């Protein structure tokens, strides 16, 4: 039982960053831009948060700078894709390589260190007095990072936004049938830009959680594929908000089990493989062929004059 609680506790903590990025990936993919760049956006979010927190001494300002960095990079990528018809796969990879280089370079310029930043102020855990006293649930829901609590309202908000608002409907149309949206007199690019702002904010939070939530420093390439897993979760959930979130939870649990087992086994490399292998199996085994990806995803759209 104790082991179960500790794994659940870890799963909740580890799901949080992937879940934020996954929600961002869903919104972005729905609008017709592929989410390959989420890895880079998440990494710049983590870096921006660490720098902001280090510079100001306040973790909340760090969160803000992380979000701003995420939005900035997300907008650069979308600007290339929307206004300059860039190849989305290549530009996505380009962003990831660029951010990997820039963060490692700035790490040395700002802190004079290779690979790791100095310790920065981290967000302190919140403890909820009422929930804390409930036996099992209180053990893992009673004391968590504020960003972990924030995830639940964000999830509901994104779900409502996509499924229950006119904005969401137009966003989906931008990804499915951009011509229809255009013929209604609405600009496809506006919706795609708005989607990339949302994706930037969410990936920024997800990244910030890594550097100033879970840890209190920035580590070179600290996202280690979580952005790609978010894309996988999005595919797993068939591009629906709820489904993708379940995918994120699955990867969070896989990672929690991985960390738990690492201390007990000699050949840790195989244990470290678990999240990646789970991603592979889930994508190739559980997802049916030809699931409904947004039809115009990955295609640039030239606005009709």
């Amino acid at each position, binding site marked *: 039982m104790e082991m179960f609680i500790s794994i659940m506790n870890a799963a909740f903590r580890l799901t949080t960053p992937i879940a934020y990025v996954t929600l961002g990936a869903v919104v972005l993919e729905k609008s017709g831009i592929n989410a390959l760049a989420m890895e880079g956006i998440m990494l710049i979010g983590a870096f921006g948060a660490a720098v902001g927190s280090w510079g100001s001494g306040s973790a909340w300002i760090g969160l803000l700078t992380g979000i701003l960095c995420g939005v900035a990079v997300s907008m650069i990528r979308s600007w290339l894709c929307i206004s300059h018809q*860039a190849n989305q796969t290549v530009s996505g990879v380009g962003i990831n390589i660029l951010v990997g280089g820039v963060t490692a370079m700035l790490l040395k310029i700002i802190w004079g260190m290779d690979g790791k930043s100095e310790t920065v102020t981290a967000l302190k855990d919140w403890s909820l007095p009422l929930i804390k006293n409930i036996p099992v649930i209180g053990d893992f829901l009673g004391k968590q990072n504020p960003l972990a609590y924030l995830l639940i309202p964000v999830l509901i908000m994104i779900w409502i936004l996509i499924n229950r608002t006119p904005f969401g409907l137009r966003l989906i149309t931008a990804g499915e049938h951009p011509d229809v949206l255009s013929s209604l007199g609405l600009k496809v690019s506006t919706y795609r830009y708005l989607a990339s702002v949302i994706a930037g904010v969410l990936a920024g939070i997800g990244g910030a959680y890594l550097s100033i939530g879970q840890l209190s420093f920035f580590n070179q390439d600290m996202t280690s*594929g979580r952005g790609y897993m978010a894309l996988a979760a999005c595919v797993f959930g068939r591009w629906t908000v709820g489904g993708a979130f379940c995918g994120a939870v699955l990867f969070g649990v896989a990672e929690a089990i991985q960390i738990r087992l690492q201390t007990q086994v000699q050949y840790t490399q195989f244990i470290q493989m678990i999240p990646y292998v789970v991603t592979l199996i889930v994508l190739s085994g559980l*997802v049916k062929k030809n699931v409904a990806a947004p039809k115009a995803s990955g295609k640039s759209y030239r606005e009709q004059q």
Partner: protein
Amino acid sequence: MKKRKLNKKINPAPFYSIALAAIIGAVIILASGNSPLTIYSKLIVGAFGSGNGLQQMLLQTTPLLFCGLSVAVSMKCGLLNLGVEGQLYMGALASAATGIYFQGLPQWLHIPLCILAGMAGGALWAFLPVWLKIKRGTHEVVTALMLNYIAVLFIEFMVNYPMGDRNSSVAQTDVLPSSATLPKLFIKSQVSVGIIIGIVLAVILAFVFKQTILGFQITLTGAGIKAAAASGVNVNRIMIVTMIISGVCSGLAGTVEVMGTYNRLIQGFSPGYGFDGIAVAVLGGSPVTVIFSALLFGALRAGGMALNFGTNLSVKFITTLQGIIILLIAAPELSENIWRKLRKYFAKIKKREG
């Protein structure tokens, strides 16, 4: 009679992009508190200033050439092979294992055997994503990336436990027997004949794309899957074949590093050559021009090492430049527009002065 033009018009986009990237790079250098002139001259001197630098450049070019070819082949077919890093490691593992466990073979047999094993290792790791894509409709980009992480961890296990050199504190295998190492190009240098193998491979690939039916079918599939299928091309078969060729190239990258450069398999020997390969391929485009872009990035990497000492920049500045170049080439309209605007602007200034 008009003379027939022999040289085709050269695509200017790569040159625009390099120039723009250099300008953006200069801004970054200024922002970091250095002088662009000092840094750029340091880069050039680092790569071309000495015999050592030149050797370092060739050393860096070799894996970049193979990885660049690998990505370039996959892009011809409309796929983007993002699993090069994992394929490189699996190729390295297969060739190192063949080198270490098959002792006592004559050199003329052992070297080709190791190279073949390396090619097979890379091909296997490239085959998996495309096979899953065709059989199960799996997102090939995500599977390839996940296989990268799995390959890196698997090599980590192999060099730490079953194949590890117990007398060394570094995670690496024993030295390969001399029958399984490639001859060196220069005395007292790590540069091996691997780079020549790479150039030959590039020429062969260029021939395949220009002169054979297979090459034509690959290009056709890359231009549009539906059209290719309608004209009778077995699209699935072509995609598998392309990815296997691509995987063979990446496998060779690892093989040549193991058999030529280090003579052993070392944990984490690749600082991301697989991802550098994307920049090389995107800039180079076709197999023969990939040779030149590999040389360019090899020179940048060799020069970039000089930045690690005495400046607050590091070799990661080169990675940043690579990212910028990829983005500029991904959006060809962007760099052309910027150049057009710049030209107009200069024309205006000239008018005002004149």
